[in-house]
Structures are given as C-alpha cells and as structure tokens.
C-alpha cells in the first residue's frame, strides 16, 4: 500500500512539474489532466471512492475539456505547439498566489483532528454526503450553485458578439 502511494505521489508530482515547465501549451494542459488523474488515484487509495470518482468526472472529464477549449479558441490553433516560455510574465503573481494557497492549506491542516490515514471508517458514505448537502450544508451548496450560474451567465454575456450597425440591414 505504501509503495502504491509513493508511485502515485511521484506520478502526480511529476505531472504537476511538467504542467508548469513544458513550453508547449497543449502538453501543459495534458500534464495537468494527468495531475488531476493522480489526485483521483490518491483519493481512491484513501478509500474516498466518491470523491475520487467525482474528481475524475469533474476535473478529468469536464474542467480539462474547458481548459483545452479555452486554449483552442483563444489562440491560433496551428501555432499552439511552439509558443510560451515558462516563468515569463506574471511570474511574481504566480509565486504570490502559490504561497497564499499553500499558506491556506497549511493553516487548514491545523484544524484536522488527526493526520489523514487510509482508514475506511473515517470516510462518510455517499448517502450521508448527499444528506448533508441538502440539510446542514445546504446554504454553502446553494451559494456555490449561484456563483457558478453567475459565472456561466457572465461568460455567456462576454462571449456574445455585439451586433454591429450594418448587421441590421437585410
């Protein structure tokens, strides 16, 4: 079990490094997808099957497609292979954001009662997760749904082309 963990951890870390160091944008995106897959595998080894499956469904199946589509429609697709230098513009923003995320995660770890262990008993069953989402956690759940809807409407508003004046002519 330990060996499996280390294998997946190395796989995930290597994918993450590839995602930020490759010069080819599509390779970066694919490495990021492999990284998401590694996280899902880690969740499976921790017996968090539901979270693992959702991680694959949402991140590997949906978010990654969003990233790939964003790449394809915002850039010249034929030149996607030979662009972008890693660590160029926005380097400092990246470092600061990274430090913030790590700080938040480290701070959050303080609140855990014990270190996470591959202990099946500590994982909530799926039905219980569902029940919590519509009872105790209903407000954050709805707030997130509202946020995502707002983001969707906003992106649609941005994407819609302004009708130009001469388009009115028959």
């Amino acid at each position, binding site marked *: 079990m330990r060996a499996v963990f280390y294998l997946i951890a190395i796989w995930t870390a290597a994918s993450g490094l590839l995602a930020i160091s490759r010069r080819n944008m*599509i*390779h970066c995106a*694919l490495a990021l*997808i492999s990284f998401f897959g590694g996280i899902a595998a880690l969740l499976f080894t921790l017996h968090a*099957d*539901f979270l693992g*499956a*959702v991680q*694959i*469904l949402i991140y*590997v*199946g*949906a978010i*990654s*497609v969003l990233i*790939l*589509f964003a790449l*394809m429609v915002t850039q010249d*697709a034929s030149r996607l*292979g030979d662009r972008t230098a890693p660590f160029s513009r926005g380097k400092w923003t990246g470092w600061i954001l990274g430090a913030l995320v790590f700080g938040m995660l480290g701070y959050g770890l303080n609140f855990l009662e014990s270190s996470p262990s591959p202990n099946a008993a500590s994982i909530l*069953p*799926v*039905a219980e997760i569902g029940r919590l989402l519509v009872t105790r956690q209903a407000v954050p759940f709805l707030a997130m749904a509202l946020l995502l809807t707002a983001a969707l409407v906003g992106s649609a508003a941005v994407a819609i082309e302004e009708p130009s004046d001469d388009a009115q002519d028959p």
Partner: protein
Amino acid sequence: MYAWFDQIFVRFGEAVLGWVTAYFPGGEPLARILLSVGPIAIIFPLIFAATTWAERKLLARIQNRLGPNRVGPAGILQPVADGIKTLTKEDIVPERADRLIHTLAPILVMVPAFLVLSVLPMGRNMTAANLHIGVLFFFAAGSISQIAIFMAGWGSRNKYSLLGGMRAIAQMVSYEIPFILSALTVVMVAGTLSTTEIVASQSLALAAAPDAGLLARAAVHLANTVGGWYLLQPWGLSGFLIYFVAGLAELNRSPFDIPEGESEIIAGHHTEYSGFKFALFFMSEYISMVAVCGLGATLFLGGWLGPKPIPSWGWFFLKVFALMGVMIWVRGTFPRMRVDQLMTFAWKFLLPLALVNVLAAGLWMYLPSRAAAWLLGGALMGAAYYGLCRLVRPPKTGPRSYRYA
C-alpha cells in the same frame, strides 16, 4: 439444475480460486484479479468482432445488399480477415504530428472502454468490480475518452482531425448532461449507486398461493422477474428513451456521427490513423457501445432479471444484443444531423426533458397512489414533450418562389 447452470461461471471461478490457493498459497489476490479481468479482456473483444460482422450484415440487409460473403460461410470470418489486415498494415505517423500524443491517444482510448465494463452486473453474482458507487464510476471513467479523442485530433496535426476532435468533445460534453440526468432518475428511485443493487431493486417478491397451479406459478414468476423493470414506469420509459438517444450521441454513432462525417471532414479524429492504431479506435467505439447498452439494460431493463429457462447471464447479453441491434437499425434508417441541429437538440430539447423526467421520478416516489403517479407523470412528460417540440421547431418558411432567368 437451473441454479447450477445459472451460476456455472461463478462456480468455475471459485473452483479455479480453490485450486490456486491449494497449490500456490499467496497467489490468491492475483488469481482473484485475473479471474475478474480475464473474462472481460477475452469476451468483449470477441463480441466486438462479432458485432462488426453483424452490423455489416444487418446494414446490408437494410440496403438490399448481401454484405460480407467471401470469407467463410456467410462471411462469418470477415472480422478475422480484417484483424489480420489491420495488423499487417504499415503504421503511418504524419511527419509534423506530435508523435507522443499521436501514439498515446489510441492506447488511452481503450482504458475507459474496458474500465466501465467492470461495474456491469453480467449475471447473478457476476459483477467484476461490485463498487458501491458503480453508476458514478461508469460515467466518471467514460468521461476520460473525451481526452483521448482530443489527443488524437490534436496530435495528428491535420485540420480534419482537429475539427473532428473538437466536434466530438463538444458533442460528448453536451450530451453527457441528459445522459447522466436520465440515469439519475433510476438512482433516485432505487436509492443506491451500486449497479448490483439497482438490478436487485427491480425484482418483485410476489408469492404464489401454495395451491396454485403450474400456470399461475409461472405467471407469478414472470411478474416477479419482469414486472419490476423501471422501463414499465412512466419516468422509466421516458428516461430510457432519453438515455438511449443521449447514449447514441455519446458513442458518436449515427445519426449523431457528425465528428466523423465522411462527406465533410473525411474521418474526423481518425483520419491520420492507420493499421492497428485505427483498429484500437474502432474497437473502443464498439466496446463502448456494448457498455452503454449494458448500463441501459442494467438501469431500465432489469439487468440480468428474466424468467427462468434462460440463465441470468443469458438474459443480460440478450438484452444488450437487442439494444445493439436497435442501434444498428437506427444507423441504417436515419440520416446524419447537422451541427446546429445537434446542439439545439441537446440543450433546448433533451436537457429540459431530462429535468422534467427527474421531476416525474420524484412524483412517482412521493405520490401515495400508483394510478395518480402514472397519470400525473405521464401527463407531465407528454406535456413537456409536446411543449418542447413546439418550442424547438424551426420557423416556418413560406413556399419558395423561383425566378427563371
């Protein structure tokens, strides 16, 4: 006798397992894995081969042709000839293609195709991986194939491949929502994500009177094994139809085979693939077809449930083959849709209909009387279908006027 025959594969597996533990102590976990994986890895490629032959024969029949008839009796050995042909063909990689991604794509596309088979209950006690989140796992693993298709489209560095890949992803992402929503209704009513428990929840437990005759007992047996199918409930019927249509789109099969529309973009994402790499794409498509039909049978048609003389695994595969036959029939009957029709159909018709179907399933769960649930649920689905049809209908154009020069 029936019970023995019904469990013949399970018994065989147990016998092998007992033999392994007796002679190779410590080899049990490995044997257990091989016994789950082995049959899937052997049987489904065989089904794939048989399906290619059956599809060509059936399509030929629909089009008043003979179909394959040179290799073996009735062309039955055609898949073998095709296999040898693809194996011996030259493997061509375009010069400017991204070699790594181009090679990885056909390998990656096989992974979800086989992964999803592991959660299908193919008979009583015959689920390779009896996960408690089986249905979710099916959809999660299935969504990986989009990435593989994108890799194939992008890695080939061919405009047709790229267009085909983009079309495939756009289509699969769009149709995934009604696809999952239609399965959600079953999960709601059965109250579980496990495929095995979903099948079990579709069997009834009526008891025949002790002094009942043979005919009455047979009727009760039939009602127990068939009467509980979710297909026979209002939300289940509409859910199954939504599932089937969305499944056709997920599989990129006709009439939704826009990603590989030959007349427009050659063969879409497999334009630049030859030899066995192409065969891998072909195989993953057909095995996914078996998997989608298998889940459809599990969710709506009672899985392996069926009246007695036929064993449970026989029923499962009968239902799967029947659904696959309908898919081939559809391919021989309907013309391909246009891209704009495809998106309109997914977002403006199928998605709202699937949402209304969820409501109908809720009505079924909470209305006290079955008759009221039937009436209300049926009326709801009928009204939604009629209203959406009116809404999506393209604007009427007047009669065309011709001007001759």
